[in-house]
Every structure is written in C-alpha cells, then in structure tokens.
C-alpha cells in the first residue's frame, strides 16, 4: 500500500457541477502513486486560512499521473474556502488515507449504488472495472433529488458499463429513489444473483440499502461518513460501531478513517 504523506498541490481547475457542487482539480509536484477507489484525502488551505481542521473527500478522478479531481458539495465553511481558493494557489493535502473498496474479481458482477455526492468514490471503481474488461458485469445506480444534482453524470454515462439514473422528482431516468430503482432492477433480474453490492450516500440511503441486501443475503460494502478530526488515526473522533460478531472483532468501535471509510456491511452496525 502507498503510505500516507503530507504534501501541497496547486489548484489547477475548478468546474461548477450542479447547483451546489464543483470539481476541484489539483496538480501535484510529483506522480501521485497508487490510490485505491474509496480511499480519501484531507484538504485545507495551505496558507493556514480557513477552519482549524481539514476536511475529508473521496478520490474522484485522476486526469494525469500528477493530477487528481475531487467532487465537492459546498455545505459550510470548509468546503466554501476550497471553492473560493483561486487557481494556482496551494492546498494542503494528506493522502492517501483509509481503506477503500475491495473490488471483486473481473468475472464477478458488481452493483454500485450512489446518492448525491455519494457518487464520488465510484468513478475510479467504474474506470478500474472497465479497464479490467468487466464493464459488462458492472452496474451503477446513481440517484439524486433532481437531474441537476446527478453531478457529472456524463462521466459515468460515457463509461462502457450499465448505468441507471434515478431522480426523486422524476426529472431524469427512473422516477423514485435509488433503493426503489435497485428493487426494481432486482425484480426484473437485471442484476445477477452473485453480484457484490457497494453503496455510498446519505445515512437513510445506507440504512435502507443495508436492510435490503441483508434480507437478500448479498455481499456488500459501504462507504461511511463520520466527523473526522485528523483522518490519519490519531484522534479517535471518527468512531463507527462495530458488529461484535463481525470480522473487526469485539472492540465496540472502528476508526472510520483507518478501518474505513469503506466497511464490509457485516463488520459494522448501521
């Protein structure tokens, strides 16, 4: 694994994306090295301005050996200062952090379910699957409130895999949420029985996802969000409750920033 390190990267591009998000492209001074889909970075302004703590973001895309993109929804001060940071200015980056998705073998189907910016870790997953020649065995369901919040949907739609889109207001694709869309696909037998299921998104989505796949006995992994103080395992501010009978053992908490943010569903309590 590529060991976590601190570095600074230059703001290379900022592209608006939907009503409340943007794509942040950062240029590093050297090749980035290996990153796993589902791993994350901590970002803050290099000049020391902005909030006290850095903010966690999933790796979204890689545009060159020394350039990465992040899909960032602007919620509060930490994301606002990143959006306001001018081109050519420096961002403080700690990377790569955490445990990402364990992609199944190329011959095993994969179904990925995203809500809103929960799509962020799945672009790299999808690209890797396509590269492995597993695009035909790869399914992606991307849901949002409305079409304009299906952030950067073209990036997914243009990959040689099976993408489905769902909107709560029916403005694009399936009318309803991603879980309804997933259930619909299962009824129609679009998704193979032996698939592995990944999900990332708001907590209610993950809970509904967990209920569904647990009832069916599917193998699943979820990417979780918790408050993060440090992102590198030093502060204990990111606990996720473990399943006492699961693979993480009897300790009641996992560190989301190290043991996660991606967990196998049977290892945690959602």
């Amino acid at each position: 694994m590529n060991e976590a390190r601190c570095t600074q990267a230059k703001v290379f591009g900022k592209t608006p994306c939907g009503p409340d998000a943007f794509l942040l492209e950062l240029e590093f001074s050297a090749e980035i090295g290996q990153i796993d889909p589902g791993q994350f970075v901590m970002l803050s302004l290099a000049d020391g301005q902005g909030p006290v703590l850095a903010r966690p973001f999933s790796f979204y895309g890689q545009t060159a050996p020394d350039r990465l993109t992040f899909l960032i929804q602007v919620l509060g001060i930490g994301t606002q200062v990143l959006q306001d940071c001018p081109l050519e200015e420096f961002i403080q980056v700690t990377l790569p952090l955490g445990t990402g998705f364990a992609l199944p073998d190329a011959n095993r189907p994969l179904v990925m379910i995203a809500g809103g910016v929960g799509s962020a870790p799945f672009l790299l997953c999808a690209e890797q699957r396509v590269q492995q020649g597993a695009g035909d065995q790869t399914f992606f369901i991307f849901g949002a409130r409305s079409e304009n919040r299906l952030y950067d949907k073209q990036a997914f739609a243009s990959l040689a895999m099976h993408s489905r889109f769902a909107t709560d207001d029916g403005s694009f694709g399936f009318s309803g949420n991603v879980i309804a869309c997933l259930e619909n696909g299962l009824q129609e037998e679009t998704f193979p029985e032996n698939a592995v299921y990944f999900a990332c998104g708001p907590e209610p989505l993950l809970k509904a996802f967990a209920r569904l796949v647990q009832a069916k006995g599917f193998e699943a992994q979820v990417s979780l969000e918790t408050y993060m103080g440090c992102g590198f395992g030093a502060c204990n501010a990111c606990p996720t409750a473990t399943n006492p009978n699961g693979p993480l053992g009897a300790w009641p908490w996992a560190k989301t920033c190290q043991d996660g943010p991606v967990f196998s569903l049977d290892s945690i309590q959602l």
Partner: protein
Amino acid sequence: MGAQSIFVMTLSTTIGSLSLHTPLLTGSGTFGHDASALSFLNPDDLGALVLKTVTPQPRPGNPNPRMAEYEGGILNSIGLENRGLHYWRDKVAPELAQIAVPVIANAGGHTLEEYVEMTIAFSEMEGVEGIELNLSCPNVEGGTRFATDPIALAQVVAACRVVTEKPLWAKLSPNVESIVPFAQAAEQAGADALTVSNTFLGLLVDWRTRQPQLGRGFGGVSGSGIRPLALRFVYESAQAVEIPIVASGGAASAKDVLDFMVAGASAVQIGTAAFRTPDLLSKIAQDLRALLKEDGSTIQTLIGSLEWPSL
C-alpha cells in the same frame, strides 16, 4: 557532519535526566495510540513521542459526536477510548523499543491504585522512556478529582514516584483558579517535570437544534484559542517550581514554541495544530533552526528568559 549536525545540537533540550533532540513533543491523544503516525515526521525533528492515555481497563470512550470546531480551536470529548493495559503491553509496547525517538507513555486511572498499576507496568516496558500521569482529563467521570485537589494529586504522584525510576511527569489541569499549589504539590511529591496543561472544560451548542454539539455535552477546548491561557499557567508554574515545565496548549508554530520557552517551558507539546498538518512538527523544527540562527540565540538561553515589567 558539518552545518546540519550543529543545528541539530542547538535544538537539543533536557527534561530532568532525559535528553531530547528537539523541544518538540506530540501531545497525548493527538498523535495516536502507537508509533504509526511517526511516518509523517523526520525522527530527528521530534524530541519525544507522547502517546495516548492508557488505563488499566479498556475504555470504550464517549458517544458520538466526539469533536466539534470553533474559530479558535476544537472541543473534544473522546473519553479516553483505549483498549486497556493488557492490549497495550502485548500489541503496542513491543514495537516501541524499535523506534528512533524516546517514547513517553501516558497513564490514566480512576483511583490512586490504578495510577500505580500503570506506572509499574510502564516501568517494566523497554520501549518506554518516561511516564506522564494524566491527572487532568476533563472527559471522564471523576477525571478531574486529582486535578482539583492538590493533596489528592500529591498522593498519586508520591505513590507513583516510589514504584518507578523512570522520568515521571505530572500533567496538570488548567481547570483551576491557580495552578501554583498543584505545581508545587507535584514537585514536592517527586515529579521530575510538569506538563502544563490540558484542555479547558468548555461547551459548544447548536442553537437551531437546541442541543450541545458533542454527544456528552461538555468537552475540553484545545487549539490556538487556549494559547494565552496556557502561557499564563506555564509562566506561573515555572516561577513556582524548580523542575522543568513541558508546555501544552495551542502551540502551532515555531514562534509559539519559542514564546512558551521564554515563559519558562523546556519543551513544548503540539496537539490540535497537527491534525490539519501531520508533518507540522518537522516544519516547526526547520523554522526553529532558522529563527534561532537569525536571533543568534540558543534554546538554553531562551528558556525562562521572560522579562516581566517592573511596576
């Protein structure tokens, strides 16, 4: 050889019998339970690695959320989550003997006997060079009892003193009106150094939800907002005792470190500021070398050099 080793020399400091490469230490609970975060640092830049508090029994810690942020720092109520002494002895301690930096283990407890148990255990561990007694965690039930009664504090320090020959530091609480009686009590009870101090009891609320921001309600404030408060306690402690002072509270730059040293600290712990920049201690070490060169001073001449205004 050459220039670089001379600069490394100029950063060295001592805390009692312990010689440190630099006056820069991590703060307990802010750089992990083990040595893994050391990979962010050049070991030459760090004086000692102070690890998270260990208690005799495992402690699951407090409910979520455990941390919140404000303009001047953060509020935390981790609640000393740790897997207890047995786990630490088996899984963490064996690795500590291998690392290049002195390790200070930090002991927590509910009773005098628990502190003694921890001190004996740490004394027997090869990789532990010194012991810091956390007499000041605001985030556990009864955690501040030893911190707010100088007699109780002196009893714990004295009882631990007789069971170890390793350097023994007492980490004092800032949640007192005057730190002087506590500093003097710890010195008289045989502490080799004082860590001054810990987080300040605080509260953040969310007016919209009408709820505290932390799951446990109250928490401890750390970060740059508490720096002037910590500086006052460091200065007052240094005036009151002969033993060295290790400062803790809000340091984030080389300038901050030198401010603490001028006020009387022999070394400075850095906690909250390194969350955002885990290689901060290496950056500060570089800046310290540059500042001292520019000023033509040494660490030794700066310690306690504050000139108080005569009224």
